[in-house]
C-alpha cells in the first residue's frame, strides 16, 4: 500500500531530515510514527501526502509509492484524492469560513457530483454526531471543535489513506477522547492510518505497529505489546510523553502542603461574561498562595484562558480586584504588576534582537541586568539574533526572559507546553521552577498532566457548580 524504498530527504535550506528510510505499510494498518521533536516524523508523513516534494522543496532520493502511484511523479491533486491529512494547527488548515463548506471542500475539488457530496456529508455528520457544529463560522469554534471539523472533513472524502500529523497537540482530555472515536470509525472502515505523535498512550487501542524515529532514521519498530510494555522512564528517555489517558481534572500532585501558613493574595469579584451571554465564571472570592506554582485545570471552554486575561487586567469589562499585601489592584494596576506569557509566543516578540526584546520589557533599560537574565536562560549566544528566527523552544525562553525582565511578581502562562515533547516540557518545567526560586508567583493554565506533576505545587480545579 505505502512503500518507501531507500528514501532520503533534505529540505532546500537545512540539514538532512530523512535518512535511508525503508518501510512497507499494508492496507488497513494503523501505524504510529513517534519520536521527539525534530526527529523527522512530520517529514516522513509529508512524503506520503505528497507535500514533499511538491510543496516543500528539497532534495529527494529513493522512491515512495502510495497505492499504485509514485509520489514524486504524481500531481498533488491526484494524490489528494487518495490520501487525506489532518494537520497539527487548527488555525491554519481551513480554506473556508463556514464549517459546512469546509466539509465539502475536498470533494468539490475532486469534482464529485454535488448530490453525492451531500449524501457523504449527511452520513458523516450523523455518524460522528456533529450536527451542533454545522453552519457555524470556523472563527467561532474552540480548538477542540476545530480539530473535530478537520477530521470530519477528511472523513467526508473518499480517501483510502489518512494521515494525522500531531493531531492531539492542541487538544484537552475530552478532545482526545473525541479524536479516539474518529480513529476508531476510520479503522472500522478499513482505512490505512499513519499518525505522527509524541503523546502515544491514547493510540494504543488502535495501532498495529509503532515506529520510533530519531535523527531522521527509523531507529526501532515495536509491536503494540512491546510499546505498551515500555516503562515511564524508558519512554522519557526516548523523548516521548508517558502520561496515561488521564483526566487533568482528576490529577493529584504529590505531597499535600499545608496552605494555612503561606501568604495569600485574595481575588474578589472575579466575574466575566461575553457580551449578551451568561457569565463564564463568577467567583466572589478566591485565595491564591504567594510564591507557588499554581496549575489551573478544567475542561476546554470552561473559561480558564479568559480567567487569565481577566486576572492580568486585559478585559476591561471585568471589575475584579486583587488584594496583595493590603494593596488593592484594579485592572490598570494589575496590567502593570502581572505578566502573561501567551500560548502563541510569536505574538509577543516585537523587536529585532533577543537582547532588545528583554530591554523593552524592563521598566528602565538596564543592559547589565538584561545580559544576566539571558545568561540565566542560556540565551547569551543568541543575544543579537532576530527572535522570530529562533526555534519554538528558544522563543519561549525569550518570552520567559522578558517576563523576568519586567520585574513583575506574578507571572501567568497560558498552555505553555501544548505540542511539546518530553524534553521541551521538562525544560519549561525547569523554567517555571526557576521563576519560583526568584520569588515569583506562577500561575499556569494547562491540560498537560505531566507538567502539572512535574512543576506545580498547588492545583486549582475549575468546574461547573
Amino acid at each position, binding site marked *: 500500500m505505502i512503500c518507501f524504498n531507500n528514501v532520503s530527504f533534505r529540505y532546500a535550506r537545512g540539514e538532512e531530515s530523512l535518512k535511508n528510510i525503508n518501510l512497507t505499510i499494508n492496507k488497513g494498518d494503523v501505524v504510529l510514527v513517534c519520536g521527539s521533536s525534530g526527529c523527522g516524523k512530520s517529514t516522513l508523513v509529508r512524503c506520503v501526502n505528497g507535500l514533499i516534494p511538491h510543496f516543500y522543496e528539497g532534495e529527494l532520493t529513493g522512491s515512495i509509492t502510495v497505492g499504485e502511484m509514485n509520489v514524486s511523479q504524481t500531481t498533488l491533486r491526484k494524490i*489528494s484524492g487518495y490520501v487525506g491529512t489532518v494537520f497539527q494547527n487548527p488555525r491554519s488548515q481551513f*480554506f473556508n469560513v463556514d464549517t459546512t*463548506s469546509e466539509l465539502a471542500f475536498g470533494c468539490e*475539488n475532486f*469534482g464529485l457530483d454535488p448530490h453525492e457530496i*451531500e449524501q457523504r456529508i449527511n452520513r458523516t455528520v450523523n455518524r460522528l454526531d456533529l450536527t451542533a457544529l454545522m453552519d457555524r463560522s470556523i472563527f467561532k469554534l474552540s480548538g477542540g471543535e476545530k480539530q473535530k471539523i478537520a477530521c470530519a*472533513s477528511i472523513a467526508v472524502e473518499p480517501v483510502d489513506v489518512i494521515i494525522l500529523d500531531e493531531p492531539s497537540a492542541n487538544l484537552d482530555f475530552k478532545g482526545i477522547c473525541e479524536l479516539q472515536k474518529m480513529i476508531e470509525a476510520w479503522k472500522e472502515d478499513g482505512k490505512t492510518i499513519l499518525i505522527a505523535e509524541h503523546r502515544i498512550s491514547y493510540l494504543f487501542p488502535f495501532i498495529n505497529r509503532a515506529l520510533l524515529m530519531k535523527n531522521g532514521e527509523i531507529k526501532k519498530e515495536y509491536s503494540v505489546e512491546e510499546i505498551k510494555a515500555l516503562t515511564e522512564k524508558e519512554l522519557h528517555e526516548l523523548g516521548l510523553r508517558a502520561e496515561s489517558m488521564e483526566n487533568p481534572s482528576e490529577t493529584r500532585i504529590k505531597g499535600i502542603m499545608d496552605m494555612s501558613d503561606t501568604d495569600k493574595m485574595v481575588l474578589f469579584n472575579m466575574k466575566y461574561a461575553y457580551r449578551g451571554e451568561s457569565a463564564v465564571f463568577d467567583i466572589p472570592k478566591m485565595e491564591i498562595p504567594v510564591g507557588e506554582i499554581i496549575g489551573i485545570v478544567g475542561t476546554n471552554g470552561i473559561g480558564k484562558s479568559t480567567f487569565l486575561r481577566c486576572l492580568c487586567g486585559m478585559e476591561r469589562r471585568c471589575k475584579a480586584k486583587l488584594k496583595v499585601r493590603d494593596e488593592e489592584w484594579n485592572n490598570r494596576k494589575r496590567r502593570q504588576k502581572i505578566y502573561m506569557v501567551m500560548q502563541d509566543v510569536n505574538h509577543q516578540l516585537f523587536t529585532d534582537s533577543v537582547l532588545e526584546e528583554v530591554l523593552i520589557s524592563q521598566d528602565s533599560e538596564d543592559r547589565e541586568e538584561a545580559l544576566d537574565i539571558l545568561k540565566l536562560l542560556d540565551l547569551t549566544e543568541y543575544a543579537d539574533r532576530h527572535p522570530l528566527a529562533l526555534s519554538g523552544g528558544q522563543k519561549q525562553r525569550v518570552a520567559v526572559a*522578558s517576563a523576568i525582565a519586567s520585574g513583575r511578581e506574578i507571572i501567568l502562562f497560558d498552555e505553555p507546553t501544548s505540542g511539546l515533547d518530553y524534553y521541551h516540557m521538562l525544560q519549561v518545567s525547569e523554567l517555571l521552577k526557576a521563576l519560583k526560586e526568584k520569588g515569583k508567583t506562577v500561575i499556569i493554565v494547562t491540560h498537560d498532566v505531566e507538567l502539572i506533576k512535574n512543576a506545580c505545587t498547588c492545583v486549582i480545579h475549575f468546574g461547573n457548580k
Partner: protein
Amino acid sequence: MEYKLDRNTHSLLDPRTKLLLLFTSSVFVVGSAGEQRMRVFYWILVFIPVFLLFMEKEWKAGGAAVTIYVGSYFAQIALQHELTALESVLALMLYIITKIIPTVILARYIVRTTKVSEFLTAMHKMKVPDKITIPVSVIFRFFPTVIEESRAIGDAMRMKGIEMGAKKATEAVEYRMVPLIASCSIIGEELSAAAMSRGLDVGKKRTCIWNIKMGFFDWVIIVLCLVCFIWWGIGGLFI
C-alpha cells in the same frame, strides 16, 4: 435529530450581483460620477448597504449607519456658510466619511456573507480564470485571521506597557506590524499546504454543493445598476 444538509441556503444576493453592486457603488458613491444628475441614484446606492445589514439582522450596525448618514447630511447643510478653518476641516472629513462608509459596509457585507465555494463557482461561471479567483478567494478567510492575530498582538503589547502615550509610543507601529506579518505569512504557508493537500488546484474542474441561482432581489439590483450607468451615459450625451 438527523442532520440534513440544505444546499439551497444562501444569502440574499448572488456573488455576481454583489460584485456588480460593489462596482456600481464605487463609481457613483465613492467616485461621485455624474454629480447632481445622479443624486437620486446616489442616495439609493447609499441606503442599499444599510438595507442589506438589516436583512442580515445586524440591527445595531444598521442603526449606527443610518444615524451617521442622517447626522452628516444635516451637518453638511449646516456647514454651507462661510467656513472657518476648523469648520472646513470638519466639512471635508464629513464629506469623506459619507463617501466611503457605504462602500465599506458593502464590502464587509460581501466578505461576511459569501461562501468561498460560492465565490469560486460564480467566478467560474463568469469565465474568470482560476489564477485570479483562487488568490482572491483567500481574502474571505484572511480578513478574520488578520483581525484575530492583530488583536492578540495588541494585547501582548499592552501587557508590556507599550501603548499610545506610554513608553516606546513611536515604535509601537513597527512592533505591531513585525509579528503580524510574520505570523500571517506562516499561516498563509500552512493554509496553502492544507488546501493543496485537499486537491485545490488551478485549472481543474470543481463542483459546488451550494445551488447558486439569481433570485428576485438579484434582478432588482442588476436592473438598478444598469439604469445607473445608462442614465449617466445619456446625461453625458447632452453635455
